[in-house]
């Protein structure tokens, strides 16, 4: 899966979590939890989806590494087999 496909998937996921927002308007370096008002429960939904979609288990210690769209994409690309 390339970066464009990953981004498309993330947009779809973020729209389902925060339907009233426009994830496409996020800057790549913007913190998604702050920008889209995502609480800890919805963040767990996001991490769970990353595992189910990409087969990547994100340890809690890594939560700090996946705060922005850019960081999540890079994280997924690095961890993809």
């Amino acid at each position, binding site marked *: 899966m390339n970066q464009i496909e990953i981004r498309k998937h993330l947009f779809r996921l973020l729209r389902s979590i925060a339907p009233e927002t426009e994830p496409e308007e996020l800057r790549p370096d913007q913190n998604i939890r702050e920008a889209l008002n995502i609480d*800890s*429960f919805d963040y*767990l939904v996001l991490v769970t989806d990353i*595992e189910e979609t990409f087969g990547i288990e994100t340890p809690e210690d890594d939560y700090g590494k996946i705060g922005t769209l850019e960081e999540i994409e890079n994280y997924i690309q690095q961890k993809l087999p």
Partner: protein
Amino acid sequence: MIEFSMPSLGADMEAGTLTAWRVKPGEFVKKGDIIADVETQKGIIEIEVFDEGTIEKLLIKEDEKVPVGTIMALISADHEVPAPPKSKQLPEEKSKEASPVVEPARIRISPLARRMAEQNNIDFSIIEGTGERGFIVKEDIEKVISGKGKRMPKATVDKVSTATEGIRSAIASAMSRSNREIPHYYLSEKIDMSNALNWLLDTNKQLPVKQRLLPAAILIKAVANSLVIVPELNAIWDNGLQMKRDIHPGFVVSLRNGGVVIPSVHHADKKSPQEIMKVLADVISRARSMRLKSSELSDSTVTITSLGERGVEIVQGVIYPPQVALIGFGGIREEPIVENKMLGIRPVITATLAADHRATDGHVGDRFLKILKENLQKPEQL
């Protein structure tokens, strides 16, 4: 004959609209079965039955809005012989038949299509139905979802704002009553969360991602266990303090479009943090899609609100009547803590108790917060 009435799903509910019956006359039901969907200011709620028997008669029609307490159906208990059609009960039944408080706009829509529209935030009032007699059917909603249906462009926004207004008005009513009737007192305590968070981190390492625990699960468990020791706060005020045997904390879930709903976590004192997390994951997602069961909204015995790890420091809540206490948790933040004359930086949460001074005094609240603090130092024992 058992009379099944429109339940009250909280102090703020005055009426509900039956959107669909899930049962038919002659059908056998048992305790916990969902027999109807009712639309309230808190969304569409699945109404459970608390008796066992056979549905004798459905007394109100779909789309009817009736006040809380109106008899909706008659259920004959198993051992009862169903009454003959012209028995003595008839006049009484008739006199108690539903009296609609508001005549709703008659939109012809199938229950399935209505549900799909609700789930997708679609305003079905302006959709052109293509079913029999102009009914809006599943296909009409599917067309709107796929962008091929006929509707006004701002329908979604309109629907959302209507639902939000309903919730806003329900909150306004309950909170105004609380402020008018309940003399609140507040107590706060800072709690070192190091042990609790370390325990969560270790526990989560053993769990699949989907089952990971959030701090909310352990906070609810710690509150529930503390209420076992201080039961005066697990109670309602109804011409006096009435303590509740079961501990069903209501957990405040904020909705994305504004407003809150408060589903309850039944018997939280008897559940493990893992079991509480499982309940939370289920109710939070259903609360956000406005699909909760009647028992989850009607029987909480105390309320817990948590602003989440990233929240501000302190929340001083407003008690949800007729309850007598609300426990608020602020955000978790690193703070200097002095322990054994040593200064250290620790994750700290501020727990605040808002309590009804008619029901308890500061001494009870003080005891509760100290026990809560102790409980959060020994998370492995919760």
